[in-house]
């Protein structure tokens, strides 16, 4: 069953077409890598799918909800409650310890503090961060900080996790470790995953890969069962 369906997406900036008639579907629990060179439109696609940008034309549907029919405030709430995000860096609040950083979406949604930090702590331990719950981002390595960001993205049990170059600031070995955790923990939580990357290695961790060029999806292929993982 598809959880996210986008049809005929067009995004223009002046005379530039960042997205040129793009159709994308993401199945529930499926992981999709979006690849392509710089300027191919992959980050724009991620922002449109996540309801951050409003496309010039086309539609985005999340489990029966038309994203483009929602108000700005409704889309903000939807991003908080139904989506999770992992960016390249710079998303953790320096003043909060790891478990509060991870619990932030639940706290923002009004969850009781004890329950929120307990759930975040469980996720951090699942991500191999036992013992670092009270550390602040400045005391964590780049890989540890990205794992806290993954915990934060998944803590609210989102339907879809969007990751924009999540390993861009990490060395290769740490990047692979982080990707492995991101895909497997998202799968355990039943969350679909959309990863934007220009690293060909990332595709090996995903069920399907979309290749983009000049704002169009030029090819897509599905990983063999079991993949190269």
């Amino acid at each position, binding site marked *: 069953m598809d959880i996210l369906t986008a049809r005929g997406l067009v995004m223009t900036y002046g005379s530039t077409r960042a997205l040129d008639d793009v159709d994308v579907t993401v199945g529930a629990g499926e992981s999709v890598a979006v690849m392509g060179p710089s300027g191919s439109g992959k980050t724009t696609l991620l*922002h449109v799918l*996540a309801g*951050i940008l409003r496309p010039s034309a086309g539609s985005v549907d999340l489990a029966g909800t038309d994203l483009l029919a929602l108000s700005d*405030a409704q889309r*903000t*709430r*939807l*991003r*908080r*409650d139904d*989506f*999770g*995000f992992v*960016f390249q*860096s*710079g*998303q*953790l*609040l*320096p*003043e*909060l310890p790891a478990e*509060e950083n991870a619990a*932030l*979406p639940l*706290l*923002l949604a009004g969850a009781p*503090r004890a329950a929120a930090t307990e759930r975040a702590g469980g996720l951090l331990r699942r991500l191999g961060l036992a013992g670092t719950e009270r550390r*602040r981002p*400045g*005391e964590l390595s780049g890989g540890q900080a990205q794992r806290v960001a993954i915990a934060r993205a998944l803590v609210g049990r989102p339907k879809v996790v969007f990751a924009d170059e999540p390993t861009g600031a990490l060395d290769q070995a740490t990047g692979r470790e982080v990707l492995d955790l991101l895909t497997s923990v998202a799968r355990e939580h039943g969350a679909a995953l959309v990863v934007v990357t220009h690293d060909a290695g990332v595709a090996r961790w995903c069920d399907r890969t979309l290749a983009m060029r000049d704002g169009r999806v030029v090819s897509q292929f599905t990983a063999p069962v079991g993949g190269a993982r």
Partner: protein
Amino acid sequence: MSAVRLWWSLVRHAHGGSRLPAVLAVTAFAVTTWVVLTVAGGVQAFQARAELPGAEEIYPFLSWVAVALLVVPTATLGAAAARLTVARRDVRLARLRLAGATSGQTTLIALLDAGAQALTGAVAGIVLDLAALPAVARLRFQGRTFDVAELRLGAGPVLVAVAAVLAVALLSCAVSLRRVSLTPLGVAQRVPQPGLSWARVLPVLLLGGAFVVAFNAGSVLLGLGTVVGALVLVGLLAGAFAVFNLVGPLLVSVLGRVVGARARSVETLLAGRRMSEDPRSVWRSVGGISLVTFVAGCLSVTPGMTQGGDPADHVLTDIGTGAALTLVISAVLAAVSTGVTQASRVLDSRERYRTLHLAGTDLAVLHAARARETWIPLVVTMGGAGALALLIVSPVLGLLRTAPVGVVWFLGCALAGAALVLLAARASRPLVEACASR
């Protein structure tokens, strides 16, 4: 020389959108210079009046007490403005490092930036001072208003004031740069600030000792003449203020931990954590005004003391006026300081604001958290200082049985000052919105 040329080319090609922090920094330097010149003009006028036959000698001393009270908030504002210039620059300086600029060249560029803005602000401050002099001259002290000529400073003192503002700006800029280590890889890394030590409490004990010695040696000091006695008193006061500023961040840090531990809403949690993470910067916003609130609170009874007394005895009334004036000036300084500190913090956190907003965080939550990190410490420190002062003078209030004119006046000034600081904290909202939706 190449760094100077590079800096000039960067200044010329600055984008319109990146000018807001520069405008804020120049405004802060202008206010700093204006306050320095106004206060120095006041000291000059009181000193000149004291040399007239039959004049009260206490006025120059009182004006120096006001100077001692205003030194910290004024220097704080100058330093906050300099930090703002660095906050805005760190990413660009890091890119310059990547392009091959040496650490010395990037430091020089940053110092030129801060220096140029301080100088522009200082010139604006001089103009502001000249424009405001007629209004300041209407203040009544010693039963009469001032002549503008009494308050106008000569070229020498003005140059000294400008040099002092420049020195504070350059020094703060150099210290801020130390906290941003610009690696040749082009990464602007925030060096974590060292934690606060309980050793900050030690000077309190030392100062307590100094007070005991001074009180016991009171007669000896009086024997040395009024000038030495006044100097010792002003020195002790300045020491007390310095200690207050050492202990203040520690108080904010403890308060932050308590607020953070008990927070039920995410806004309060963020505010509490922020207070314990960087208590120095939070203290910068509230410290100066709290200190003056305490002193003004203690002096608030003085106008009442003259009622029914000799109408010619204007010293006590003047002390009350001076206290209220010092409170108003420090409120203005604290407000500009808060505005500038908040703006540089928003600029430092622009990437986080953007990602938080993308991930569905309401901007209202971010605004509320920033408001709380200002008003919680403000209410606790300023309210605490005011209440403590009134507690100390309450026996006098009871004895006087006069209408508590001074106290009402004091409370009004304090509330207006607090409101001004809170308004200044709100002023960076558009900046948050711009950073979040970039």
